[in-house]
């Protein structure tokens, strides 16, 4: 760590003591890009949201957002989609990943099949949902022919269509993460527990789940982030005027249909705030969990 730059030797020395020297220049390009393309626009957006287009006080936009139930309702509508979607994706991943953690023939293939829906893209999923779950689609035909229902079930252009789409696109990510956390748990721990007389149920309850919990929290956060920014599917398979008018749609409409960038920034900022609030709660809960080493990485 040769520190050769700097103006006066004393200053250079003091900086070097705090770990600041010339090799930190390697960080500069990345940080500069993020400051220019992320930090500056974010601050600009916050500033813009505090300068309402129609005048009023500094917080007029925020007040308007919460007073207009058509706008403030989007918070609840987004949560109503994102929270269940993230919970289902993480919850369904756990038992499947548990089955898949060891080594056996076909594991890689099955993993690949479960991960491949990542590539489908929201539009193909939306398109497929419209066809497959539509009133004339195969799903309703099977149900009708089996006599399970008398008339086609309405599963698209409403809440359910969007939820399905979020599950199809979000599950592979959650599954991949949970599987890798599961593979990171040292299998000898479980065997040790078995030696001490723990049954399978106890091993899951007292060994696997506690070790997995921090990873589950992280996965939940990432799954939630993914579901929270739901936008294309809410427009395509949802009811974007009412039931699935999520915050992203409200922000987009403000920016590109009403050209009210100030209000759009307000909604974008609020989106970030509400999302980070949920993340903070999860992290708070996660902080109380055991986060030490889980032993080997025997995948």
């Amino acid at each position, binding site marked *: 760590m040769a520190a050769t730059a700097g103006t006066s030797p004393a200053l250079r020395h003091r900086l070097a003591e705090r770990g600041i020297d010339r*090799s930190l220049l390697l960080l500069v390009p990345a940080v500069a890009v993020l400051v220019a393309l992320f930090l500056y626009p974010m601050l600009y957006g916050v500033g813009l949201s505090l300068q309402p287009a129609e005048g009023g006080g500094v917080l007029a936009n925020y007040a308007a957002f919460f007073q207009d139930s058509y706008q403030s309702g989007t918070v609840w509508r987004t949560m109503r989609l994102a929270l269940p979607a993230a919970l289902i994706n993480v919850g369904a991943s756990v038992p499947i990943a548990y*089955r898949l953690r060891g080594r*056996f023939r076909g594991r890689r293939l099955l993993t690949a099949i479960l991960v491949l829906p990542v590539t489908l893209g*929201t539009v193909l999923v939306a398109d497929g949902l419209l066809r497959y779950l539509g009133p004339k689609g195969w799903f309703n035909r099977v149900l009708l022919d089996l006599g399970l229902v008398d008339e086609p079930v309405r599963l698209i252009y409403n809440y359910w269509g969007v939820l399905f789409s979020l599950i199809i696109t979000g599950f592979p990510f959650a599954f991949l993460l949970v599987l890798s956390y599961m593979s990171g748990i040292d299998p000898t721990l479980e065997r040790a527990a078995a030696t001490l007389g723990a049954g399978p149920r106890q091993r899951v309850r007292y060994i696997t789940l506690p070790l997995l919990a921090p990873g589950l929290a992280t996965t939940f956060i990432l799954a939630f*982030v993914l579901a929270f920014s739901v936008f294309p599917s809410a427009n395509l398979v949802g009811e974007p005027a009412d039931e699935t008018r999520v915050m992203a749609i409200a922000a987009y409409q403000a920016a590109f249909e009403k050209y009210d960038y100030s209000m759009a920034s307000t909604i974008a900022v609020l989106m970030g705030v509400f999302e980070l609030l949920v993340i903070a709660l999860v992290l708070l809960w996660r902080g109380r969990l055991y986060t030490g080493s889980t032993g080997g990485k025997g995948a």
Partner: protein
Amino acid sequence: MTALDPDPPAAAVPAPAKARRPGIPGRWGRPYAWLVWGAVAFFLVNLGALILSVVVDSFATTWFGTWLPDGYTLDWYADAWREFGLAQVLQVTLVVALAVVGVSLLFGVPAAYTLARRDFAGKRVVMLLLLLPVLLPPITYGIPLATVLYKFQLAGTLFGVIAANLVPALPFVVLVMTPFIEQIDTNIESAARMCGARTRQVFTRVLVPLLVPGILAAGILVLVRTVAMFELTFLVAGPDSQTLIVALYSAAFTPGIRAAQAIDAMAVIYTALSATLLTVALFFVNPTQIVAQVRETPAD
């Protein structure tokens, strides 16, 4: 918990892998296992039917209210290619994706190296700056970013699209690369320095060759993510700088203008492209290993 630390190398050796059954569980595991596999099968069957219905429709002449379409044709693909100007769209997609991969690797790898190896005042601030774009929904910073880009008249240009896509890609490269860098023995670098290598030489002669697997992994994953990134590209793209997914969404969201089958054909093309990319990625990278190693990074 630290007492376990010297252990991992032993556990990482795939010694007991021979005949270990997947679930180990005894009697109670069976019905439960069947339940899990049944649910997986149900999910996969429905998903398969969903994909199949799009694929079938993209080959159908007409298909209304019957089990299968009346006839089959390839016309919709030719149609999609011509009408959507797919050649140009694919070219834009490729240029954007490759540029984002190149720049994010060029800037991200050195940054990951510094963050993995060094401790300095303000490191937490830099880490936060790198984590926030991963944690915030793209629309949240996408809308202010689009506003800024419009202000500087960069929105709608290829440059604007590349710049916007760099925001999530760069932190992603850093997160993926960190564990790979941590695996390299610091003694190797010290030895190189002792032999008189300067930082640049340490990088080009020692670190980069050792990091090739990680760089490849990060590059391919960024490529897949950039091709799939809808929100940011949608917000900043103009008519000439649309990537495939944005062109696809615009076509699907304005129904009636295009034939439904042509949109399906385009969706199939998109999926085939990204499935190919992902298969290539899975060929080079074992995804579970990357994430398992990344695990240690966000845990402070």
